[in-house]
């Protein structure tokens, strides 16, 4: 199947998903614009997993979201446009990302890619699924975006483009939250400075999309706190996308907790809490009836080994550049007394997530711990924190300047 046919099907699927999302957000008054359309489309896609679990669950979740966003309140789009004249940087970055994705042969080259595409193919063929040891959201989105095709190239490209859609959500929300081109570009530059991000951006993976969804949830909740009517729907959509990975709920809870714990977020924590509730409902519904895994096999003595292994991973300059080192500096700087709340909130989110990841690995079954210590897990978990780290570094650059920052 040619790339053009696959892309045409992809666009058609996006339009259909946008119609479903638009139905749920009918009274949210999101208005026009690329971000509003993208939020509708991604919400429609993210709801697929709930409808797949059970129609009643999907309807319940859709009703909850529709009620929560009924008659959206906040700034008119014109006011937002006054704050920020253009999102040229974001659109340029999205174009670069899409070219990078499409230029790679649409073939699953990595084992993890093959596993996701195999699940998507099974869904397209309506086969009985093997014991699901992972979330079905990415395979469902992949199958839907390829219009139910079972062709490997269509599935592989659609799966990769899910990452592109998550990147677009992050970049457009960043543009909406930024006052200057520098504010908008800096987190994207930090992201691009981690070569590992380029590798997974061009493949079918959950880690980068989940990280971008976590960053989008932060940005969406903060927009909601500032009265932007797109904020809450964007935060909820991003939270639902976090269901792509089991650890997504950890990121969502960390975001909501940090918004609640660090003062100054106004109503943002309410939007984040609502998003966590939606994610929780969707996750429970999807995994309902799945075989119970052995959840606890605590080994506290391995904590030191895990931390040591994590440090070894993030010290690899070829994989991460110096993003972790600069991120560490930004994290420490954000706790200075003079620092504003935004970077401190992001720092708290990162610390909470790291603590929960470590606790989960220490308590996890031995197989998962062995995988982490064997080098096949920690880099991917770290990638899920990269967009949050990028936001923190961009905030940290001006954290100690006398406010408002001189431009």
């Amino acid at each position, binding site marked *: 199947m040619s790339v053009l046919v696959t892309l045409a099907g992809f666009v058609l699927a996006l339009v259909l998903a946008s119609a479903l999302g638009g139905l749920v957000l009918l009274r949210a008054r999101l208005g026009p614009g690329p971000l509003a359309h993208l939020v509708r489309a991604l919400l429609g896609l993210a709801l697929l997993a709930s409808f797949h679990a059970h129609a009643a669950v999907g309807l319940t979740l859709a009703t909850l979201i529709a009620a929560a966003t009924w008659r959206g309140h906040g700034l008119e789009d014109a006011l937002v446009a006054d704050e920020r004249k253009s999102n040229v940087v974001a659109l340029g970055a999205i174009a670069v990302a899409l070219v990078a994705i499409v230029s790679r042969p649409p073939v699953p*080259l990595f084992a993890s890619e093959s596993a996701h595409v195999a699940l998507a193919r099974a869904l397209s063929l309506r086969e009985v699924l093997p014991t699901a040891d992972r979330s079905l959201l990415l395979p469902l989105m992949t199958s839907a975006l390829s219009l139910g095709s079972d062709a490997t190239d269509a599935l592989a490209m659609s799966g990769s483009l899910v990452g592109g859609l998550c990147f677009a959500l992050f970049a457009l929300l960043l543009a909406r939250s930024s006052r200057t081109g520098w504010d908008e570009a800096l987190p994207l530059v930090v992201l691009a400075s981690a070569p590992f991000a380029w590798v997974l951006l061009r493949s079918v993976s959950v880690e980068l999309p989940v990280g971008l969804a976590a960053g989008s949830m932060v940005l969406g909740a903060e927009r909601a706190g500032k009265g932007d009517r797109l904020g809450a729907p964007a935060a909820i959509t991003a939270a639902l996308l976090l269901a792509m990975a089991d650890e997504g709920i950890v990121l969502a809870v960390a975001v909501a907790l940090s918004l609640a714990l660090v003062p100054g977020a106004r109503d943002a924590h309410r939007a984040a809490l609502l998003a966590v509730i939606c994610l929780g409902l969707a996750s429970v519904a999807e995994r309902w009836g799945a075989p119970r895994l052995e959840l606890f096999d605590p080994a506290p003595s391995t904590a030191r080994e895990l931390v040591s292994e994590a440090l070894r991973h993030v010290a690899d300059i070829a994989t991460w550049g110096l993003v972790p*080192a*600069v991120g560490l*500096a930004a994290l420490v700087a954000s706790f200075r007394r003079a620092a504003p709340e935004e970077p401190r909130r992001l720092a708290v989110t990162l610390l909470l997530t790291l603590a929960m990841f470590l606790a989960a690995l220490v308590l996890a079954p031995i197989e998962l711990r062995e995988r982490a210590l064997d080098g096949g897990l920690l880099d991917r978990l770290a990638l899920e924190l990269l967009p949050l780290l990028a936001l923190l570094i961009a905030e940290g650059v001006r954290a100690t300047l006398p406010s408002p920052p001189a431009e």
Partner: protein
Amino acid sequence: MVDGADGVCRAPRLGAGRGVGMEGLVGLAVAVLALSWFVRTRVSLRARRVALVLTLALAALPGAYAVLFVRADRPSAADRAARQVVRLHDGVRAFAVERGCAWLRTESCTACVATAELALVGLTCEGETTQAPIDLFTDALAVGCAEVDGALRCGTVDDDARIEGGVPMVDDPFAREPEPR
């Protein structure tokens, strides 16, 4: 293929906690420098941003070189790797479609198993069977597949791997799992 997405080019899979070494020290030094830079209020915002972008861009060069010129999925080699994967996938799927189902008897090629499992979605034989076995030997991607005595043989028989890796004998139709080492 298996390790391709973990690390950019050289993060070793084994050896927990070892080898932080020089790169860790470099990272720590940069962190301290960046921290002192961040907390100096006399440095202008523009200077901070320019310094940050330059530092990150320079540090990304080794990884960018690996992504563009070293990795198996580098742009110049991605097409070849993709062709090999597609050839294996299509061979396995065509074999399984022709016989109604198939199953993996030999799994010496770790990198190929995921591709073969993708090809066998909806076509895996259920229960014990001697029909339509597939043997994946270590060089399956490079060599491709051919039918031999009713089986699909991908790659060439690797006796050393069979002995050292405990891979089941090709002519043992019931040995579906490798023996534990």
